[in-house]
């Protein structure tokens, strides 16, 4: 673990988030994070939505304390921390995210020649703007109210009402097609999503499906035990054993 000083460049509205740019010598990779000292009692976890050699951009909620800094301000960071997504010579990549968690998968949008992104959200207005994604990415939308795309939720086995369609059969095909699957959803969704993977692939290799777990991470080093979650192999720390886990490891509760 490193402690490093970043330079805050800007915070710009990027609805529904704010895009925050930090220049730093060692930026986090996709799925890793840094803990930024922003003046509160605890550090704030920042995940990269875009990474380059000079730093990274994070998408934060409106009003996040880091958005109040002035350009040029120094920010004390712990990290990069944790285990991020691990993809090896990938040609076909499937990404699945809840709309408000999509930002952590954004660094993977160019990670393969063929990327399919499935986004689930409550309604059309919460979906990412297509022009915010690389043109080569195939985007599939799932809404809980059916206002656009397939009718959610993703894992539903219920028949769809007339005029609407579930994504289930297509999702099974996509899981069979892809070489790697990366997910960013609430943790309680993962058991059902792990079930879909098991149905669609007979013997998925270890880390075929990689799921990022969002939780509070006050210390980032395994000291506080706030971030412990149950897994197939006992409780683990999201901050150091994750935040990216093998879906089948955590989707078994």
């Amino acid at each position, binding site marked *: 673990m490193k402690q490093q000083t970043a330079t805050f460049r800007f915070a710009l509205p990027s609805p529904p988030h704010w895009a925050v740019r930090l220049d730093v010598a060692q930026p986090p990779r996709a799925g890793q994070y840094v803990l930024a*000292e922003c003046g509160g*009692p605890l550090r704030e976890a920042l995940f990269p939505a875009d990474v380059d050699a000079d730093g990274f951009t994070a998408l934060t909620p409106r009003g996040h304390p880091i958005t109040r800094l002035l350009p040029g301000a120094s920010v004390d960071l712990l990290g990069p921390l944790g285990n991020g997504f691990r993809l090896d010579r990938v040609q076909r990549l499937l990404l699945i995210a809840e709309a408000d968690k999509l930002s952590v998968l954004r660094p993977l949008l160019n990670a393969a020649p063929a990327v399919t992104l499935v986004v689930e959200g409550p309604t059309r207005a919460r979906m990412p703007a297509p022009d915010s994604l690389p043109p080569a990415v195939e985007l599939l939308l799932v809404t809980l109210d059916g206002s656009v795309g397939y009718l959610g939720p993703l894992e539903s086995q219920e028949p769809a009402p007339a005029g609407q369609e579930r994504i289930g059969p297509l999702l099974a095909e996509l899981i069979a097609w892809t070489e790697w699957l990366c997910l960013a959803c609430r943790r309680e969704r993962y058991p059902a999503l792990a079930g879909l993977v098991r149905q669609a692939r007979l013997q998925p290799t270890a880390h075929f499906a990689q799921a990022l777990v969002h939780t509070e991470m006050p*210390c980032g080093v395994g*000291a*506080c*035990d706030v971030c412990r979650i149950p897994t197939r192999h006992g409780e683990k720390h999201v901050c150091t054993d994750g935040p990216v886990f093998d879906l089948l490891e955590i989707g078994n509760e």
Partner: protein
Amino acid sequence: MIELAPTHKYGLSLPTPVMPAAGVFGYGDVYRDLLEEGVLGALVTNPISLRPRNVAQGQRILTRGEQVLLHTGLPNAGAKAILRQYGKYWERSPVPVIPHLVATTPAETSKAAVLLSAARGVGGIELGLAENVSEDKAVELLHAAQDSGLPLIVQVPFSRVDALAPRLVEAGADALTLTAPPRAVLPLPDAPEDKAESGTRLMRGRLYGPAVFPLLLNVLARFAAPGANQLHVPIIACGGVASPADALTCISLGAAAVQVDVLVWRTPGVLREIAAAFKAL
């Protein structure tokens, strides 16, 4: 050198009177990249119980202003597993290791204390008591933990200092940590007001942060300050210590040493700064 167990046959000498509080520093070397070995006076571990304990369900941490409310359920892998994982590190530790033992039943407490005391590097045990423990039970648990044969520090629940501290000293505690974090309640942030009032959307837990520091000083002024010390054992001050100046204030009020709590997560270097301030005295 600071002596925390002056009447114990082994004693418990610390090179400097600063250490992390239980629950903030893990069991060993998680801060190895940020704090050089030997900065601390002792390593107080995260809570350890005889049997494994799972993490609490639901919300575990909440902030309000500068205050932090924490409820983890004292999760740990159990004394044996922790010894397997960290025993080697404790053996090499340049400073005494003080496992924080969660008092459960007297039998379990005794067993765990004996197990932990067998590890080389362990210089003493800090016993953590439940907030609602009776005075008699507290003494019984203290005697159980004394089966370790090592110096015994008891961390006294914040609301029970008057009732418990004198009894624990009388029963043979070598030192007291004053205090465990106060218990507190906060409404969960997205709770509608009416629900918060009905108690259905509240979080209970241990309170940390700068608001605790004046409460700590009040306890020290009453129980540790020169002329007021009714306890006659070394007192370790714990609660909201945030700077070298805070630490020195605790010492001026009769504390023999200080523990730093959740501030370590934001600013691990505060331990180094406090140690440096003591060195400069």
